[in-house]
């Protein structure tokens, strides 16, 4: 309002602009796609064939109005008695009787039976106005539902009077300033059977219930909404014991905030293959593989790790019952039952054929909203069968919902044998941030499991094919051997390992022998050197002796000469 006023002031216009006020229905998805709710103070037409949930929508609108927005409501029912209505909505947990008692809701059943009424002369529907006006005024109602006003057409003969009176009624409702829902039966070639859409032109919502391949999908479409933009697509909605959920609009722009934080995959060896030591939080991970390659085990390991970090996990199982998953995962050392008991882990199991594709999505969305998990697992997406564009659209929305909420989503997908991608795989591959492919390698009469990272956005990752084993301690990677014919796994790998060990032994032995020989040689040479040195020393000693003798002799000789000289000297 403030901005509007400012804008008005800026443009200098004298009249004040006010945007269309909206009344929230309290049905989340519906409020999102109408950008706030139904037009306040105006009638809204809600039409659809029998069993579409018109009455339920209208009742939810009223009851949410009381419970969430403190707006009293009036229900004028032309089809169901108060008692029946109370019973019908009690299954959704709504206590109509209590609301009526607290004077927050008025339920007025209008009974018209053609056989009991004789028409004589001119009349109008002022009685209806009086009743409605009295009901509205008695509790200060802001919300009104007329369900289904077309019943008047079967109760009264004069359609000309009826039409003019209905026109007057809707105008009167507008004057009253109440936000009204008028339900009507779907007609042939027009929105409603008696064409009352002519009189209600502010907002028209169409409900639809379609059966395709024996699966029913409820859809909702806002046909028109005067004075407001709105989602124009058909949106699936769901009615179950939790009430009505409409799937919200997929945000068209890719503007979710991303996280740099990584979360462990629950498999230490797999973390080691990823440069950030795990998956990015809020990313989408696809694990595809053949039957029995351990897709669910990888998914469970991830869930287990998340629960151990204290995060909430929601596991959508489409092929196994929760008990079965818990039991099976116990065999690989994953104690999921403890997490279930602590409330961190919840399972939602359903057969894929239970609902239509979009209904599943609506249900999953509702469960996500309610449980507020940090991690979800969908096991497997390949369980969904249907046209690929529908699968794609649905998974895009699911991935989108998860990303917008920062939920890390792990999807598994069963590949068909061979290199061909399944429909669901192909349709989601571009949505996935990390794609792990699990494979069976058949060689030497046995099957072994290998894994490789097809892609992982935003991080470096190992490009190696890795063999892994599912043990009672969890998942373990084994270094794969690259042989001349490719990767060696299983016994081939073991044989190769043995061969390598043998060769190593041989090499070691050879070396040792050479070393010994060398040592011997050195010893021999050392010995020779010692001998020669000894010989040399002997010679040296001999030479020394000779020299000594020579010196002695010379000395003796010398003295003799002196003596002789002396003797000669004395003589002269």
């Amino acid at each position, binding site marked *: 309002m403030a901005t509007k006023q400012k804008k008005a002031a800026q443009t200098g216009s004298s009249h004040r602009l006010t945007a269309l006020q909206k009344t929230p229905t309290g049905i989340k998805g519906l409020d999102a796609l109408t950008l706030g709710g139904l037009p306040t103070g105006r009638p809204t037409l809600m039409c659809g064939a029998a069993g579409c949930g018109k009455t339920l929508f209208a009742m939810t609108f009223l009851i949410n109005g009381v419970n969430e927005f403190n707006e009293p409501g009036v229900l004028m029912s032309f089809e169901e008695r108060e008692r029946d209505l109370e019973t019908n909505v009690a299954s959704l947990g709504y206590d109509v009787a209590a609301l009526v008692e607290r004077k927050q809701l008025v339920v*007025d059943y*209008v*009974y*018209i039976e053609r056989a*009991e*009424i*004789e*028409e*004589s*002369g*001119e*009349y*109008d*529907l*002022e*009685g*209806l*106005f*009086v*009743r409605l*006006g*009295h*009901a509205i005024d*008695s509790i200060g109602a802001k919300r009104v539902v007329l369900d289904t006003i077309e019943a*008047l057409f079967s*109760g*009264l003969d004069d359609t000309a009077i009826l039409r003019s009176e209905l026109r007057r009624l809707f105008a009167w409702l507008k004057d009253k300033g109440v936000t009204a829902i008028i339900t009507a039966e779907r007609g042939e070639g027009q929105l409603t059977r008696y064409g009352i859409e002519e009189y209600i032109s502010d907002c028209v919502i169409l409900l639809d219930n379609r059966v395709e391949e024996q699966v029913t999908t409820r859809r909702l479409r806002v046909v028109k909404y005067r004075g407001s933009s709105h989602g124009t697509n058909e949106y699936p909605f769901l009615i179950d014991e939790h009430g009505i959920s409409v799937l919200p609009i997929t945000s068209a722009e890719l503007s979710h905030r991303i996280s740099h934080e990584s979360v462990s995959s629950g498999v230490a060896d797999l973390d080691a293959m990823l440069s950030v030591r795990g998956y990015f939080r809020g990313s989408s991970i696809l694990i595809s593989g053949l039957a029995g390659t351990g897709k669910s085990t990888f998914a469970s390991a991830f869930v287990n790790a998340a629960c151990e970090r204290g995060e909430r996990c929601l596991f959508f199982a489409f092929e196994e019952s929760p008990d079965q998953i818990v039991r099976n995962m116990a065999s690989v050392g994953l104690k999921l039952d403890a997490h279930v008991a602590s409330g961190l882990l919840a399972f939602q199991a359903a057969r894929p054929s239970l609902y239509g594709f979009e209904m599943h999505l609506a249900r999953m969305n509702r469960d996500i909203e309610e449980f507020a998990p940090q991690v979800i697992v969908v096991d497997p997406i390949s369980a969904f069968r249907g046209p690929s564009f529908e699968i794609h659209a649905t998974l895009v929305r699911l991935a989108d919902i998860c990303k917008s909420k920062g939920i890390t989503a792990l999807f598994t997908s069963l590949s068909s044998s061979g290199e061909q991608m399944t429909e669901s795989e192909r349709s989601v591959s571009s949505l996935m941030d990390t794609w792990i492919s699990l494979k069976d390698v058949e060689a030497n009469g046995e099957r072994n499991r290998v894994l490789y990272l097809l892609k992982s956005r935003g991080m470096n990752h190992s490009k190696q094919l890795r063999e892994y084993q599912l043990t009672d301690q969890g998942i373990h990677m084994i270094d794969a051997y690259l042989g001349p014919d490719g990767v060696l796994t299983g016994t081939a790998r073991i044989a190769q390992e043995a061969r390598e060990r043998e060769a190593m032994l041989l090499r070691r032995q050879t070396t040792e022998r050479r070393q010994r020989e060398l040592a011997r040689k050195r010893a021999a040479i050392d010995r020779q050197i010692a001998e020669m040195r000894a010989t040399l020393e002997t010679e040296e000693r001999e030479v020394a002796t000779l020299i000594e003798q020579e010196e002695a002799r010379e000395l003796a000789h010398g003295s003799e000469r002196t003596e002789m000289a002396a003797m000669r000297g004395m003589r002269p």
Partner: protein
Amino acid sequence: MSIDKPNVGRAADESNDFLEEPGEYNLRLYVAGQTPKSLAAIANLKKLCEENLAGRYTIEVVDLLVTPQLAAGDQIVALPTLVRRLPQPLKRVIGDLSNTERVLVGLDIRSKLARTT
């Protein structure tokens, strides 16, 4: 009224069966304010009762603008509505009661057989 003469006797016989007590016809006319339709209905009803039910009827006019809470009780939708509260079963005639014939049929004063002939 002359056209019904051949059957008047029979209809009178039938009504005679109901005529054990005077004031048997308890009629209530619902209107909303003093509109032309309301006034016409009141006038038409009085005339009709005097002519057909002289002395054995009571008329109560309910103005829903004054007592709107009474509308739901008798399942009033159209106005004016004439409700035959007694004798049972409840009968309703809507409109300004200008078509006397249909009012008499609607109130079971004159049988439908009479109307068709």
